[in-house]
C-alpha cells in the first residue's frame, strides 16, 4: 500500500524531506513515526491529506502524511 511521507524542520536531519513508502495494511501513523526513530513526544503536528490526524489512524493508499516537530511562528 503506497503512501507519501513528508518530514519538516529538524526531523529532516539525517532522514529525508519526502518519500514514497510501501506500508503493510493496519500500519498506524504512530508505527511510522516510531520506525523513523522520532520520539512521539517531539511530534507537534500530524497531518494527513492536509487535515490534522492522530497516531492511532491507519493511512490508506495514496494518503499524504506530514510529520512536524513542535514549531511555531507568527
Amino acid at each position, binding site marked *: 500500500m503506497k503512501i507519501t511521507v*513528508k518530514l*519538516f*524542520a*529538524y526531523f*529532516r536531519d539525517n532522514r529525508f*524531506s519526502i518519500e514514497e513508502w510501501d506500508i503493510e495494511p493496519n500500519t498506524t501513523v504512530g508505527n511510522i513515526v516510531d520506525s523513523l526513530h522520532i520520539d512521539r513526544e*517531539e511530534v*507537534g*503536528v500530524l*497531518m494527513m491529506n*492536509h*487535515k*490534522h490526524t492522530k497516531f492511532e489512524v491507519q493511512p490508506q493508499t495514496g494518503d499524504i502524511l*506530514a510529520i*512536524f*516537530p*513542535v*514549531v*511555531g*511562528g*507568527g
Partner: protein
Amino acid sequence: MVDKIFRVNMTDLTTSVEEVPEAWAGHGGRGLTSTIIAEEVEPTCHPLGKNNKLVIAPGLLSGTVAANSGRLSIGAKSPLTGTIKESNAGGTSAQLLAKAGCKAVIIEGLPKEDKWYSLAITPAGVTIKEETERIGMGNFDVIKSISPEHDNKIGILTIGQAGEMKMTSANISIQDPDGGLRSCGRGGLGAVMGSKKIKFITIDPEGGKVDIADPAKFKAANRTFAKALAGHPISQALGAYGTNVLVNIINESGGLPTKNFTQGQFADHEAISGETMVDLINERGGKAKHNCHAGCVIQCSQIYNDAKGNKLTSGIEFESVWAMGADCCVADLDCIAEADRIMDDIGIDSIETSVAMGVAMEAGVLEFGDGVEICRILRDEVTKGTALGRIVGNGTGSVGRSFGVTRVPVVKNQAIPAYDPRAIKGMGITYATSTQGADHTMGYTITTNILNVGGQVDPLSKEGQIELSRNLQIATAAIDSTGMCLFIAFAVLDDETCLPALVDLLNARFDIALTIDDVMSLGKHILKLERKFNIAAGFTAADDRLPEFFYDEPLAPHNVVFDFTAEEIDSFWNF
C-alpha cells in the same frame, strides 16, 4: 526615576513634561496608547490632520531586565483603516525610553511652516530641532548618519520616504542592537509621523534606570519566567528557524494564501520555506539566530546574507516571505530578501505592500512571479512617489480601487496576512472583529487551529472559533500592555508557571497586587475602549465582515468558503 508624560506640540513647537494622571498609571504599551487616544483624540478627525496625535509608549515592564520585554507601542488614529491603531515592535527604543523616565510621548498638532524637524528625548524632556540634511533619506542612511558606530546607548525612531510622503502603508522604524531595523509596521503610523513633519526621534536615557519596587521578588519571578520561555519547544524552534518555519506547515494545512488568495497552497513552497532559508543563511555565513532587543531569550530574528556573503536583510518574517513569495508567486528568497530590505529602507509595511503587489498582479500591472519588477516598482516608483508608487504605497485597498479589482483581501482597508480565513476559520473571526483591521497578531488562533498549542480547535470547522479568537484577543491586549513580545504566548498557553510569573513581575515592579483575573480584565477593558473609539469614528457591525469573495469562492485544496453568519460574527462582542 518617576515616570512622566512627555508632550510635544508641533503647532507652536513647544514641549512639556507632565505628571502621569492617576487614570493612566496602571497602563503601559497598547493599553496606554489606546487610553490616551480615546481620551484626547476626536474619533472623527482626519488621521493626517492637526487633531490626530501620535502616542509612543514603552510597556509596563520595558527597561527592566525581564526577559523579552523590549516591545515599543506606537498608536494613533490610523490613516489606513480609520480605526484606533497600535503597532508594536522590538528594537532598543522601548527599553531606552523607559530608562529615560518616559511613560509616554504624546505628539500633537501640525507645524505651521513647511519645515521638517527631529525630536531628541532625554530624561529632562524633549527638544525639537529643525531638520534639513536627512530629508529624502531612506531609514538606513538616517540611522548611519546619526549613529555611525551603532551606539546602542541611543535609540532611534525614523521614517523613510514613504512616511515623508504620507503614504498610508508607511511604518515607523526602530533601530535594533546591530543598527538594523524593526518596524511598527501596520496601519500607516509613519504617515502620521510624516504629517507632523518629524523625520526621526532620538532617545538618550543618559544612564537612567528603571526603579523596581521589590528587586528580590522581581529577580525570582524573572528567573521562573525566563525558564518557562526558553524551555518551551516553540521558543527553541523559533530560534532555530525563525517565524518562516511556518511556510511549510501553513502550506500543508491548505491555508497559505497563494496567487492573490486564489489557492491555499503554493507549488514552490519549499523554495521559500524556513528550512531552505536556514540552509542558505548557514551556507553564506549569516546568522540563523539573532535578537531584536537585549534580553530576548527566543531570538527569532536572523541575518540573511546575499550570495556573496554580504548582509542583505535582517528579521525577515514569515508574513513578509509569504506575501512576496506565495501571494505574489515569487519563488526566490534572494529576491524576497531584497524587496524586504528596500521596504525597510523606504519605511513601508511589508505585509500591506506585498499584498498590494499581489492585487496589482491580478490587475495586470505586472506578472505574477516577477520579483525583479516588484523591486523595480519599490525603488523607482514608491521611493520616488510617482503616481503608481503612491497607488501601491497607499496599500492593498488603494490598488484594488485604482485598477477595478474585486478580489481585494482587506478588512477595514488593511491587508489580510498569511492565513486564509476560509481554511483557518479562527483567523477569519480575528480579521473580522479586530479593532484595528485585519491583523493576525490581534488574536493568533494559529496556536490552537494549527499548532496544537493551548488545545486543539479544528481549523476547518466553525465550532469553537469565536470563543478562541475572543480569548486570544483579550489576552493579547493585556500582553501588548506589558511590553512583552507576543511570542511569550506559546509558553503562557502551555506552561502553568509562565503567566503567574509574568503577573509577579508586574507586582514586583510597581509594588501592587494584581491577579491573573485583573490582567484579563485589563485586556477586556482595552478591547472595549478601542471598539468604542471606532464606533464613535463611524464604524458599525457591517464593517466587521470579510470581503465578499471569501464567502463565495471555494479555496483549494479543501474547497471551503468562509461561512460565518453576520450574527455569529457579532456574537464575538458578547463579553
